Each structure stands twice: as structure tokens, then as C-alpha cells.
């Protein structure tokens, strides 16, 4: 199983892996996580985002820029105003990151289930297993 999983990992596209790492760096920061939470509620202007923080406008702009580059946020224009909203595809990358971890446990549990089913049927057949 180990070599299979590693092979799967190596097969992954480099760009995808880089993007995934970047996404995780993006959400590792508490301010950026707070921005994601704000934007998740509704599309919002950069100044409305900045009002929620004590940090300078420039600092918040930088955070918004990073989140946009990582494709977690996307811009939309309404009239002359720029709004930021959550990019559902970007968030999906984060969800996908849990998938290898889930699969690792799924593999283990499948083995556990097969192993114990075998024990169960041995017990039924011979009545000797404890």
C-alpha cells in the first residue's frame, strides 16, 4: 500500500502541488482566515473588509492580494466598486487536501474490516477462534 500511495503522490502534477501548498500557506494566517469568513458571508468591498480589522489598509490589501493570487477570493465589479467573493473552486482545493488523509484511513479500515470478517467466518466454521 505504501509504495502505491507514494507513486500516486509522485504522479500528481507539480503545479497542482505547488498551488495546494500555497493555498495552505494562505489559510495558515489568522487574519486571512478571518477575511475568508467575512467574504464567505457575502461579496464585500476591500474597504468594508478593512473596517473589520485594526491593521492598516495596506496590510489588509496585501492579505486580499495573496488570497486572490491563490484563487481563494475572486473579484467582481458592480458599477465602479470592486467586490470580493469566495471562489468555490479555490475552496475545493482545500477540501481535496483532506482526501489523501481520508483515503489512508479508508484503506486501513477496509483492511481491518476484511481481516475481522475473515476471523468471523473462521469462527462460524470451526468455532475455535477466540
Amino acid at each position, binding site marked *: *500500500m*505504501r509504495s502505491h*500511495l*507514494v507513486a500516486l*503522490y*509522485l504522479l500528481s502534477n507539480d503545479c497542482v*502541488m505547488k498551488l495546494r*501548498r500555497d493555498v*495552505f500557506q494562505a*489559510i*495558515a494566517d489568522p487574519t486571512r*482566515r478571518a477575511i*475568508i*469568513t467575512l467574504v464567505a458571508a457575502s461579496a464585500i468591498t476591500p474597504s468594508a473588509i478593512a473596517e473589520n480589522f485594526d491593521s492598516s489598509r495596506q496590510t489588509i490589501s496585501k492579505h486580499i492580494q495573496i488570497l486572490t493570487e491563490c484563487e481563494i477570493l475572486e473579484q467582481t465589479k458592480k458599477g465602479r466598486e470592486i467586490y470580493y467573493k469566495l471562489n468555490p473552486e479555490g475552496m475545493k482545493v482545500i477540501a481535496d*487536501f*483532506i482526501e*489523501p*488523509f*481520508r483515503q*489512508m*484511513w*479508508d484503506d*486501513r*479500515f*477496509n*483492511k*481491518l*474490516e476484511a*481481516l*475481522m*470478517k475473515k*476471523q*468471523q467466518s473462521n469462527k462460524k466454521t470451526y468455532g475455535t477462534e477466540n
Partner: protein
Amino acid sequence: MEQKTKVAAEEGKQEIIITRMFDLPVELVFKAYTTADLIEQWMGNKVLKMENKAHGSYQFETKDASGNILFRANGVIHEYIPNEQITRTFEMENTGFPVQLEYLSFTQEGEEQSKLTMQIIFKSVADRDNLLKMPFASGINMAHNQLQKVMIQLN
């Protein structure tokens, strides 16, 4: 089809919840979790120590073909209720990952099925995310050469 194994890692929380439905009675799932030679078969680790009691401890190890230790983990059991509950710590040795706390709940669901819920609590949100970032690090192959190479490239 609904997934049998589910992993919930809520944003900003320092825990992971793993749930799994088994087509097995709860006694057999509990047995698989507490019997050394069974653990070795489904986890793929050698079991060096397994004391199934409160204040008991356990230790797992994986070696490569040449006998080098690839992975070693240990923990202390805090609560041990057969077929119901194991509360224990889990630490991967020499990895820099802090100790985690695990609540394992075993419940019978109907006559033929049972459910395992593992709540894993981390020292911090960042520690949890670091573990998820390296999904295979949490398993048996932390120091696998090929994996290490990949991780070095990633950094």
C-alpha cells in the same frame, strides 16, 4: 454512494473527526484495535507494546527491509472501557509533531454494524493543518525516502 470513512476538519478548529461504519459487530472492531497481531495486520506496523488498561502504554514501529526505523509512535492510555471507549495520547517520535489526544468511541449500530468515531485533538490549528498537509506523515511512512524527497521539493 455514501463514503464509509468520513473526515471532518472544520476550518480554524484544532481537531479532526474521523468516522467509519463497519459491517462488523462492535466487539470485533474493538478487538482489531486492541490485539497486537491484528493491529500489525491492518495498520502495517510492528507493535512493540500494547497495555490495554488505564495508565497503560503502547508503542508502534515500522522498519525498512534493511532494518532502519522508518516510523515509531507511542502513547499512554487514559481511559479503557472494552467495546466502548479508548482515550489515549499519540505521539510520532522524532518528527517534531506535538502529542495529540485521541478519543475513540465504539458503538453498535443495529445488529450487524458498528461505528467508530475518532476525535483527534491537536496542540494548535497550525499543527493540525501541518499534519493534513502531509497526509502520509500521519501514517506508516514518515521517513520513506521517496516521500522525503517529495517533501523536500515541496519546501
